């Protein structure tokens, strides 16, 4: 029997890929176009030159360098501390015997029922009263607690072979040593997956930094990007698209390089429930 060439499948796949890629290509090409090329009919796909004028303009109009540094700092500290807190909490919940452990686990789990979006007003009031508006700690601290990460790490720790840890305990290794020398090395794939998803989430975080930051030099990339939207009343698409490329490109590179791990992190939540 001759296997039919699955033409329909390839056409569908091509359409899906084009729909996903075309807007991104449009953004990238527009970021090199001058005003006259953007406002031309019929629409013109390719820019006349790839001179980075719009990029230098974007960097002149708003402090993109500061945005980048702010995004990097809030992402590294936000995601990093969150992962550490999640690992410590999950270890304590799985391996240390204390009374009322279920209650503490409940506190972590029920926090998943309360989205941060719902509590923006009290948190804003608190951060403002601490004088933390327009500061890194104001951006980072309210979102630091780890509920979902703790949950995933706990699931993973429960699946580790108890014999290894018991042997370590009999050899006289205390909890901290067991955490550092046994549990963490046995969990690197899970940690990497959860960490990458946290990095992506922190980098894209928008609503909370929008509320607590209004000084341009403290803005993160997504907030600063919107400054380009209406600098002089009308939208300068070329410059705005250059800014959009600057915001999306780093995360796209991270995604394409580490897509295996990120995909594992994204599906981890679904597989565990």
């Amino acid at each position: 029997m001759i296997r039919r060439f699955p033409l329909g499948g390839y056409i569908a796949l091509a359409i899906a890929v084009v729909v996903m890629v075309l807007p991104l290509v449009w953004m990238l090409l527009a970021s090199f176009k001058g005003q006259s090329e953007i406002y031309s009919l019929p629409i013109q796909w390719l820019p006349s030159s790839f001179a980075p004028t719009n990029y230098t303009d974007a960097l002149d109009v708003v402090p993109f360098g500061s945005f980048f540094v702010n995004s990097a700092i809030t992402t590294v500290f936000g995601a990093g501390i969150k992962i550490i807190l999640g690992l410590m909490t999950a270890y304590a919940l799985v391996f240390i015997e204390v009374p009322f452990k279920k209650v503490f686990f409940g506190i972590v789990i029920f926090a998943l029922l309360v989205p941060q979006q719902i509590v923006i007003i009290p948190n804003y009031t608190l951060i403002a009263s601490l004088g933390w508006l327009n500061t890194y700690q104001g951006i980072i601290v309210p979102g630091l607690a780890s509920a979902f990460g703790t949950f995933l790490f706990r699931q993973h720790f429960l699946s580790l072979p108890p014999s290894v840890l018991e042997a370590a305990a009999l050899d006289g290794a205390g909890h901290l040593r067991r955490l550092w020398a046994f549990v963490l090395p046995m969990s690197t794939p899970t940690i990497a997956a959860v960490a990458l998803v946290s990095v992506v989430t922190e980098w894209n975080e928008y609503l909370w930094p929008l509320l607590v930051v209004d000084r341009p030099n403290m803005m993160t990339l997504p907030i600063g990007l919107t400054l380009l939207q209406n600098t002089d009343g009308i939208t300068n698409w070329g410059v705005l698209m250059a800014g959009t490329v600057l915001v999306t490109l780093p995360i796209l590179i991270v995604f394409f390089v580490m897509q295996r791990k990120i995909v594992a992190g994204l599906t981890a939540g679904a597989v565990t429930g």
Partner: protein
Amino acid sequence: MTSTATRPARIEPDQRAKTRVIPTPAEQARARKVRSRRTRRHNRLLFALLAGPNIALLIAFTYKPLLQSFYYSTLQWNIGSQRAISVGFRNYTDWFTDSETPHVIGVTVVFTLATVGGGMVIGLALAVLLNRKLKLRGPARTIVVAPYVLSGVAVGLLWLFVFDPNFGIVAAALGAVGLPSPAWYNDPQWALVMVIIVQLWKNVGYIALIYLAGLQAIPQDVLEAAALDGAGPARTFRRVILPLLSPTSFFLSVTTLLSSLQSFDIIQAMTKGGPLEGTTTMMYEIYRDGFVAGRAGYSSAVATILFVVLLIVTLVQLRFVERKVHYA
């Protein structure tokens, strides 16, 4: 540390007899009591050290503000103001009787149903496609998921240009078949369609990814058995694959429902809730009332209502997860 000493049960009694002088049972019991008290204290300290910071943060920035939010919802209070008047449930009755509220609920329902329903249907179709043995399906999967990791603001802004009624791709494509471009920016209904399309574009890859994992977990022999029974592809899909995917479908319906109800970035970047409140969802209303209009009390009431909606959705999910665990 005292770990070895705290686990006498782990050492075989006869082994001990050979190597050590056995203390009397009373001595043993006393020693164990002292040691275990010390271990217990040690454990509690260590537990507090490891789990304490996270739990403290959860209480400070999740539980306490949640309670505060309930309290604020009973106040007539402007954000940043020193003066607040207690008004009981008036913010709630105001919201439910406000002439704008049915409209906001309508926008929220349309946006949520379209993004959840559309996302699940398109996501499943993509997953089935990506599960076929086609060349290049690996790179295709990566590309389809890519928009999901992008900033919602950046996605909203780049699509705003794609939708430009004069100079965008959509207008050009419609023009090619002789259709005029809808007024995406100025017509409330088309603006809602626009933000729905963008939300779908950003999230459909994630849905496809989860469905793909579900599809790949279906044992091959089940499908072979269906084929042997003479079931065609359509029948196999409806009668075998779809039911087996139901846990995945349920998980996805809940997570996408929650994220759609909380969607903010794309709406803020593209329409700011307009035109004419055409894209003002409940989540957007919380932001607008609280931080643009400054009515913190009223905004907290809307937040509380949305919280109750989200809670009901999530509790349904938790029940389901429990059931799944029982049957596993």
